[in-house]
């Protein structure tokens, strides 16, 4: 593993209201857990919520190129672990 895993927490209005407000803790906890192997940041709207009724699957998080729907802290950590395997 040479490349860093990139985690992007969508902080657009829709994701924020639908729950990414509770994912902000990842921005603190992930570096503590994984050190510099994972890069995590809050990002402006990823544009995933605007299609049809996809707002209902918010909040979205991108782990590298994989999109996590209805993201929770647990789901994101699991996805990171998979990447680092």
């Amino acid at each position, binding site marked *: 593993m040479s490349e860093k895993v990139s985690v992007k927490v969508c*902080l*657009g*209005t*829709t994701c*924020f*209201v*639908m*729950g990414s*407000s*509770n994912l*902000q*803790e990842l921005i603190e906890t992930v570096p503590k857990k994984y050190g510099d192997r994972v890069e995590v940041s*809050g990002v*402006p*709207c990823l544009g995933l*919520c*605007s299609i049809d*009724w996809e*707002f*209902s699957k918010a909040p979205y998080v991108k782990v590298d190129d994989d999109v996590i729907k*209805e993201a*929770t802290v647990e789901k994101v950590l699991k996805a990171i672990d998979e990447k680092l395997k």
Partner: protein
Amino acid sequence: MAMNTSTPKETSHLKREILVRLIKAYLSDNFEENTRLIPYAMRPKNSDVPNYRCCIFKERAILRDRAIAGLGFSIEDTDDSVLLSELANKAEKREVPDEHPLTVLTTACKGCVPSRIYVTDLCQGCVARPCVNTCKFGAISIQNGKSVIDPEKCKNCGMCVQVCPYQAIQKIIVPCENACPVGAIAKDENGHAKIDFDKCISCGKCASACPFGAVHEKSQIIDVLKHVKAGKKVIAMVAPAMFGQLPCKPQQLKEAIMELGFADVYEVAQGADVTTKTEAAEFEERLMKGAEFMTTSCCAGYNELVDKHIPDMKPFRSDTKTPMYYTAEIVKRENPDAVTVFFSPCVAKKREALQNPNVDYVLNYEEIGAWMIALGIQVAECEESEFKTQASAEGRNYCVTGGVAKAVQTLLPEEIPAHPVIIDGLTKQSVRDLKKYAKNGMCELGNLIEVMACTGGCLGGNSTVNAFKPALKQVTNYVNESKSIKEQVKEG
């Protein structure tokens, strides 16, 4: 919600999704039909049934009931045969919101077992048997070598739980009953939670605590949308906690609210400044007259607590009005034709608003958030727009626990020493403490008691969107760039 009591996230997600769908339905060309379809749109034919539900039909029925609360009606009082489309029509025609802002969805509630003390398999049947010996009611006996509790005799005192050396005895709690500081919610004869509105102080703790999301707020969103659609001059009064809720600057938030269709936005911190000045003067006067202590009066949940449960506290509670009161007074004076909407972090303000003719409606932060989703507003991309009247740092800090007492203290002369006591959230214990202070006519811990129904202050309100810590950070940044109320007083 904040800190130790977190709102179950799944249920918040559901409630917010329904609100967004209701708003989208209202803004569509067929409000009634699109409202009727909400449960089917959320759970279409052949879609997966959530693992907490038996079948898609029950799930849809429950989503229908949740939509009833979103339309602003009581779920308990609505007949099952009434279509959502009929209710949508009724909501649009409604003139005044319901008296009590909370409603229980009994079909979702059924999961809880009654609160009781229970001996688990971990009971070792020990020789000492401290549980049997400690029980004052003779409720515990030994059967087949293990302790058994006789529910007829057990008074739920919990002594056996404390003394068991194996921690084998547990208290099974009902989360809503456990969270309610005043014993206003309990299971009825059918095992469903029921709110006793004579006791309820509308603090919303049951709504936050229920893992099934069975306690709902009756929304006034349709009422507000109706006035905006009709082109009325609808003015938003934004409580300080709102500035911690969305990922943007306060000035962008103002613009985002204008984009919803509001004619103007006032900061409730402006009214908080009036509260601070009035309350500081009142405190000084009371102390000069020899008063032992005074409590704040800005929290609607606390005010209802005093009115319904601690009448002895009335003489000690400040007569100063709330920031919402003063703000609404200013708004109506400057705009007599306006429809006023208070943006609230909690459900209790809905009760306060009903008693105040200057406040027409109350929306909470979940509802505002849902409205922004429905319109696709990106708050972080909004232009910045300044408030006409700048509130003070202290006023903007009212939503943080300790903030009100601190504001009052700022304006007190040196010879009037305030010793603040902060009640950071109403619990069964803090209610007992307050009753004691009221009965004894004194509080040994200090003379200025600030009471916040929610832990953390308004930022911990039951209808907030942001997590407590980031919300606090955002509000604190805003407070730090604001002028002190001292300067405001100097400038006159």
